[in-house]
């Protein structure tokens, strides 16, 4: 099955940023904690590839370490979403129509009703702004997304014959959910995972833009944008580079998500053959 262009570009962009974050653990052009007011606001050149910021820190290194923050927060938030959302969704589908199912669905609608960003701000106000709280705030809003997706996918599978056959073979709903239902909605979760991952990046950028994401000295793209905002007229590049990083990362993930959906969806696959 020949992969589509969107799958390739998506994969390239995503791998680029992931490796960027990975490398930043071992090496960055300049140490990020070290401030040197003397060399502040240098234009991009041979020494500082992308120039320096108002504290004299090398923008390229900041971007690399910032990638680590953004990706870390977004991945863990998706992890929370899957870890809690999927079991809830599967359980709701398993005893469809019961009170438990109703409660899960009502709970989902309730969480969707809350304005996500405002609640994130509230959480960080209560527990103080930090990367962990950002993960929590974004993670909470991933749970209903995955619960709803996995419940929808599972419901359609429960009516299939092979699930009935498994019941005839004496298996109970928990074992059926794990052995039969989960593997067959894995594609669904993978695609939704990439989408929520990209939304997580945007949410983390938003939170740290208003100062509620990862705190100094850990660099984060959102806060780089916020700091650069006041100097946008003197050094526009300070605002352009982090913005571009966010856009390319999110674009990569969305393309990867779309590509995977087409690649894995049997209906599309059959059309393509």
């Amino acid at each position, binding site marked *: 099955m020949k992969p589509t262009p969107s799958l390739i570009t998506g994969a390239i962009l995503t791998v680029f940023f992931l490796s960027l974050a990975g490398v930043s653990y071992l090496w960055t052009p300049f140490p990020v*904690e070290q401030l040197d007011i003397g060399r502040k606001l240098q234009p991009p050149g041979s020494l500082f590839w992308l120039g320096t910021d*108002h504290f004299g820190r090398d923008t390229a290194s900041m971007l690399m370490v910032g990638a680590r923050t953004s990706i870390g927060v977004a991945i863990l938030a998706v992890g929370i979403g899957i870890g809690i959302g999927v079991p809830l969704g599967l359980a709701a589908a398993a005893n469809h129509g019961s009170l438990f199912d109703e409660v899960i669905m009502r709970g989902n609608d309730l969480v969707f009703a809350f304005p996500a960003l405002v609640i994130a701000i509230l959480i960080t106000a209560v527990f103080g702004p930090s990367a962990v709280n950002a993960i929590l705030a974004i993670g909470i809003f991933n749970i209903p997304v995955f619960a709803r997706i996995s419940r929808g996918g599972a419901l359609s599978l429960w009516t299939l014959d092979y699930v009935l056959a498994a019941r005839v073979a004496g298996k109970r709903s928990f074992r059926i959910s794990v052995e039969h239902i989960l593997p067959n909605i894995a594609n669904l979760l993978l695609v939704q995972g990439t989408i929520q991952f990209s939304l997580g990046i945007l949410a983390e950028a938003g939170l740290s833009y208003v100062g509620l994401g990862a705190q100094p000295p850990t660099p984060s793209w959102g806060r780089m944008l916020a700091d650069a905002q006041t100097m946008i007229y003197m050094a526009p590049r300070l605002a352009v580079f982090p913005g571009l990083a966010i856009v390319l990362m999110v674009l990569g993930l969305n393309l990867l998500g779309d590509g995977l959906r087409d690649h894995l969806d049997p209906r599309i696959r059959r059309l393509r053959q």
Partner: protein
Amino acid sequence: MHKIPRTLAVAGLAALASLGTAEAAKTTITIGMQLEPPNLDPTGGAAAAIDEVVYANIFEGLTRFSADGSIRPALAESWDISGDGTVYTFRLRDGVTFHDGTTCDAEDVKFSLDRARAEDSTNAQKALFAGIADVSVIDPLTVQVTLQNPDGAFTTKMAWGDAVIVAPETIGQAATHPVGTGPFRFTNWVKGDRVEIDRNPDYWGEPVALESATFKFISDPTAAFSAMMAGDIDAFPGYPAQETLAQFEADPRFVVIIGSTEGETILSTNNKADLLSDVRVRKAIAHAIDRQAIIDGAMFGFGTPIGTHFAPHNPDYLDLTGLSAHDPDLSRQLLAEAGHGDGLTLRLMLPPPSYARRGGEIVAAQLREVGIETEISNLEWAQWLEQVFRNKDYDLTIVSHTEPSDINIYARPEYYFQYDNPEFQSLMADYAITADPGMRTALAHQLQTIIAEDYVNGYLFQLARTGVADAGINGLWKNAPTQANDLTGVHWSD
């Protein structure tokens, strides 16, 4: 005394600027401000923004600050002090009326002072009136105030925004519809956007040049810059985005006004914290700090280094920066002596303003150079007040104390940096009661030297007042002896 830091101290979140009104008519002006006042009753709230709208414009006190910080008569035409300095007899100006037409006389003065010092008073600066024993009306134009003991600064205290004279009939809704005796009357307040005032036709003093004025609230630095550039704002006295001042200096349309404030920006140290009770550690911290780097990095060069807790523009200021010069090796040596050769970790709490957030990052980096690791946590004001100020649950924090001549906070052991030095406290008591200028200067120098040598805090710099204004405006205050935007003297030149 300490108030929430003045407008010029805050980089913080977005505020409001009105759309460019028609080509600015010459008799009206739009002033930019960073923080919106929670309400407009100076006697009921501590927020600096309240005074910046109403002080000298809408409300007036017995006395008032002038541009250079000196005190001059306002509603009190003149006063004389009894021999032992405890009885003040104020003679009020005749024919003064409130904006609602009612006359302002001794009864109103007595009401204002009694209300501020009452048991259930919610006046933020209640301590100003603690010294008053009795207020009595001699005749409609004469008020006699008796103090428990002499107070050299009583007339200065009466010039504070919290001591303005209000009428009993109108204090009820002063929070939203202030009625004072000032040259401007309150007309409208669009919450979250602007406050509008206009000229008071029957003002007792000489009429002001401006027809009307609008205070626009913009806290976001970039928004402030865009609003100034786009011409939406005529003047921004407490302009937050110091990094863009260079562009205004280069633009003929604008003039940049650099002044100083009463804001001593310090690295407050919790003297009772176990690691920091050892003076050698505090000394090591002081020597690890490069003040000029912080001024350049956080405030883009605006601000004057200070060696002690005193405003440089004050005549009694003593330059003690030498005591805590930047000397990392000395710091490392002191730390070793104090038994922290392998370094230590301290918690650094930072309130919202940009001097704290940006300054904090630079200080953290400088301390790291000498082996002191810091865990930064950024707090909202509410959290800072509760956790740092009231519960003293912190090691280091950065804050700017913007009250005028507030070195007396070092005499209060329960104050948040918990400095308890009996010798300093007795000296402070003498300073408070001496009126003779020569004696006060000598005492001031001694006080400054003690807290410098004790390395109570890391004294960083005096907050500069960076203002930007349309080149055609004059009469704006250069310095900020108190939190105010006094528009009485402001007028367009062409």
